């Protein structure tokens, strides 16, 4: 029986508590989360649900801004208010019950309206990693959107109205190294093996024990020889290759079978996909400067490496899928890939150091392990460039996309327009549509919606039923709808903070009546 070793590999208390999520975004993602601060403007069931979704996984801190007093109706839809809260500051009560969820998280509140804070201390909002807001007036939303765009603070505006909800992300530029694609094409370089791979494959004899990759390589050579140096491209080519491998079988060798199955998916990796090529062509990559994000310096180093010495091939990811084989031949092959990947990454790391020096920046701005991670994930790199929310409120707003969508039946873009009309109604008439009288407000809301659409130069109208339904809600916030939208928004916030997984681009609409959702780029 083994005694506990002095340096116990067992996880720390904190690692254990967050184990189930660290398996998704890693310890490095968790560290980013634990140092981030978010600001919630306007407490509500939706606001609480958003914060709950970032407080539980251990965000660094949160601050609630709300100048209102808790009503009995608030308590009925928001789990983070209780009966004792009625009549007290909403920001304070909500902060207390949310902070109670997780002692690792710092909670704070400002019991002042967003409007007065924007006037007295606009810089307050720019101290946060992310700002998220609910139930804003049009005027405040526009002001906040402009401020946060200017100051490059990512901003989420979320709505929950009756059975409908929305999330709008405003971010100037967001860069993702780890996008965690559902499936990855393996980069095996069979068509163009790097020298050590070629050497290894040529020196390996075909036996039933070697990985299928060796089998495929050997038969690929035969195929190429037969076709005067051409590579198999078409379906017929590949079928011929499969037949050649099958004919080479003496018994039913598993590695041959696996090689036959792998014919279709094993070629063509290693070249930059279109999205990555666009990143290489980006102005930020071509015009590096002292203030640019280190991401772009690594991108530039990768691009230079690919163009100047790697024949257009990406740095090798060095990841080999599992294959039936004996341990030794698999591990040896794996090492060939890993060593080349290491070498490529080292090369790129040296290039980043040169670039840093030429820009007059500190060399420790980019660490070796950053570059290694970057190279492993290079085929999935993503850059997200957003648009400003306040633009949607300009008279000159280019709404071609909305017009198009409105013409396709059942599109949820109609709900976006309806939510916009709801807010415009509040601005112009000073109360919530359907608060007291559904019938009269329905007629008024209809005309508000038509006005918005005609400002955009759109001939289509909103359906009477949708306008009626919006008024029927009378501004109600339904808890389960807020919980749905809040959960989604919380994860989008985590994506931005951890710089992993692709965020929504850029507007999410949810209809709980039909359980449908859609995303639009506005």
């Amino acid at each position, binding site marked *: *029986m*083994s005694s*506990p*070793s002095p340096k116990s*590999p*067992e*996880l720390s208390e904190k690692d*254990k*508590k967050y*184990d*189930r*999520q660290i*398996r*998704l975004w890693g310890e490095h993602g968790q560290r980013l989360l634990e140092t981030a601060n978010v600001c919630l403007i306007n407490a509500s069931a939706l606001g609480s*649900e958003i914060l*709950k979704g970032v407080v*539980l996984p251990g965000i660094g801190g949160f601050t609630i801004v709300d100048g209102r007093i808790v009503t*009995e*109706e608030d308590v*009925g*839809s928001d*789990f983070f208010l209780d009966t004792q809260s009625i009549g007290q500051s909403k920001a304070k009560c909500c902060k207390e019950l949310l902070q109670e*969820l997780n002692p690792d998280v710092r909670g704070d509140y400002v019991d002042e309206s967003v409007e007065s804070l924007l006037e007295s201390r606009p810089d307050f909002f720019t101290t946060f990693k992310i700002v998220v807001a609910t139930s804003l007036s049009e005027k405040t939303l526009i002001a906040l959107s402009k401020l946060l765009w200017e100051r490059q603070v990512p901003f989420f505006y979320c709505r929950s109205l*009756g059975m409908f909800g929305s999330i709008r992300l405003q971010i100037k530029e967001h860069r993702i190294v780890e996008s*965690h694609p*559902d499936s990855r094409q393996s980069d095996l370089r069979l068509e163009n093996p790097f020298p050590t791979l070629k050497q290894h494959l040529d020196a390996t004899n075909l036996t039933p024990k070697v990985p299928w990759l060796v089998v495929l390589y050997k038969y690929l050579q035969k195929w190429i020889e037969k076709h005067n140096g051409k590579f198999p491209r078409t379906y017929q080519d590949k079928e011929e290759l499969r037949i050649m491998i099958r004919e080479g079988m003496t018994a039913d060798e598993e590695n041959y079978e696996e090689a036959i199955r792998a014919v279709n998916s094993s070629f063509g990796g290693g070249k930059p996909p279109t999205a990555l090529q666009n990143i290489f062509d980006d102005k930020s990559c071509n015009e590096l400067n002292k203030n640019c994000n280190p991401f772009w310096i690594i991108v530039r180093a990768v691009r230079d490496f690919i163009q100047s010495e790697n024949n257009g091939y990406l740095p090798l990811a060095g990841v080999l899928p599992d294959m*039936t*084989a*004996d*341990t030794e031949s*698999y*591990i040896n092959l794996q090492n060939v890939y890993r060593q080349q990947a290491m070498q490529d990454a080292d090369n790129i790391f040296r290039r980043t150091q040169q670039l840093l020096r030429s820009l007059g920046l500190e060399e420790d701005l980019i660490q070796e392990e950053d570059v290694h991670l970057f190279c492993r994930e290079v085929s999935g790199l993503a850059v997200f460039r957003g648009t400003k929310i306040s633009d949607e409120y300009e008279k000159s707003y280019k709404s071609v996309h909305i017009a198009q969508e409105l013409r396709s039946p059942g599109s949820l873009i109609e709900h976006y327009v309806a939510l916009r009309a709801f807010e415009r109604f509040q601005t112009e008439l000073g109360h919530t549509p*359907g608060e*007291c009288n559904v019938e009269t407000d329905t007629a008024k809301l209809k005309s508000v919606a038509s006005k918005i659409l005609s400002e955009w130069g759109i001939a289509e109208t909103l359906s*009477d*039923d949708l306008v*009626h*339904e919006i008024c*029927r*809600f*009378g501004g*109600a916030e*339904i*808890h*389960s709808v807020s*919980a*749905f939208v809040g*959960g*989604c928004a*919380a*994860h*989008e916030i*985590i994506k931005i903070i951890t710089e992993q*997984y*692709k965020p*929504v681009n850029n507007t999410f609409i949810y209809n709980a009546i*039909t*359980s449908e*959702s859609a*995303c639009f780029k506005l």
Partner: protein
Amino acid sequence: MEVNNSSVEHLPQLSKRFGHLRKITERPGPFCHANFSASPENLEFLSTTCKILIIGAGGLGCELLKDVALMGFNDIHVIDMDTIELSNLNRQFLFRKNDIGFSKAERAAAFINARVPTCHVTPHFCKIQDYGEEFYRQFHIIICGLDSVVARRWINGMVLSLVKYDDDGSIEQESVIPIIDGGTEGFKGNARIIIPGLSACIDCTLDLFPPQVTYPLCTLANTPRLPEHCIEYVRVIQWEKENPFKAPLDGDDPQHILWIYEKSLERASQFNISGLSYRLVQGVIKHIIPAVASTNAVIAAACATEAFKVATNCYEFLNNYMVFNDGDGIYTYTYAAERKPDCLACSNIPRSVSIEDPNTTTLEDLIKQLCEDQEFQMKSPGLTTLIDGKSKTLYMSTVKSIEERTKCNLTCSLGELGLKDGQEIMVADPTTPNTIIIKLKYNTNEVEMK
């Protein structure tokens, strides 16, 4: 269309508190279900009559309890056999550090009852199998927030067995209890509604649950290539052989995990395999599924919305399956999962099991087929049949004395056991409270018949 306050006056605490819900339940609307009548009675039904059961008080269960409590449900029951662990706290938000070791159902119920005074949650700290028909029959709606396929199938079978039929074979509506089922894994999830006897049930869509990854024994023993192979070798072979703690492996015992970690590390270094970490060992041994608060919140919310629709008739409920994924953007998709005409659980047609050759297929082969086949996925089936009008137990592992008496049958061929083509076999399994009937279909006979 003015809001009418008079009828809920006898429930003063509800009238204001549920101002939001009342707009939806007391006003008619263009998208409402045909059977909906706008009235204070809708909320009154939720608060005085409707009885709802939440199965599971874990990641989904905590969210579900909060959601249904704030959607106006009052008489809420929750059942869960588990106790609270540290790794639950990143998402099971009704629990704190000092709750560790206590019943999830009890702590969750106490929390909700304290926070939401309009509702009353009754906890049940036990297995779902501890209760029978009388218990489950009392509910109007059951919502499942489970991570186990076996438990889902069992409750599915239970609710199906409660469905009563008229003399003319039509379903008695009052006997039907809708099941709303949620599931999550990482950033993926699903929510669905099952109307037992009418729409696709859990067993109709068994193929949606992928079988667990297993590695061939010879890979583990002779040609390991991945760190997982080393861990599985230690778990399957070395633990059995060395039995270091004179006890079965307990994934929750840090000593046990540490032993497996150290032995796996030894094996990995012996084969030059890299990438073995303590977290990986834990993940493999405990079959850990990654989980975050947000996905559970979303899926539970979708389930609660559907429960509200079912209970109030305010909108047509989901038909019948929604998939969710927010790993890349936010994506949902809804579709109608179809019933399987010969579903093991919800059809009365005995399922055929194809047998190559009754003279070479042993009873053990048949049992293996029932466990491994995607369409059955049974756990430890017990088999009985009628031979010459007499009931005969072929094999049963759950009762020790019967196991001893029947294990000799395992190596017998079906022919030797006197089982004929078309023979009906009654199967009992932990995946269902009911008896499943399968029908043997011999392929060799079929060839002769042509």
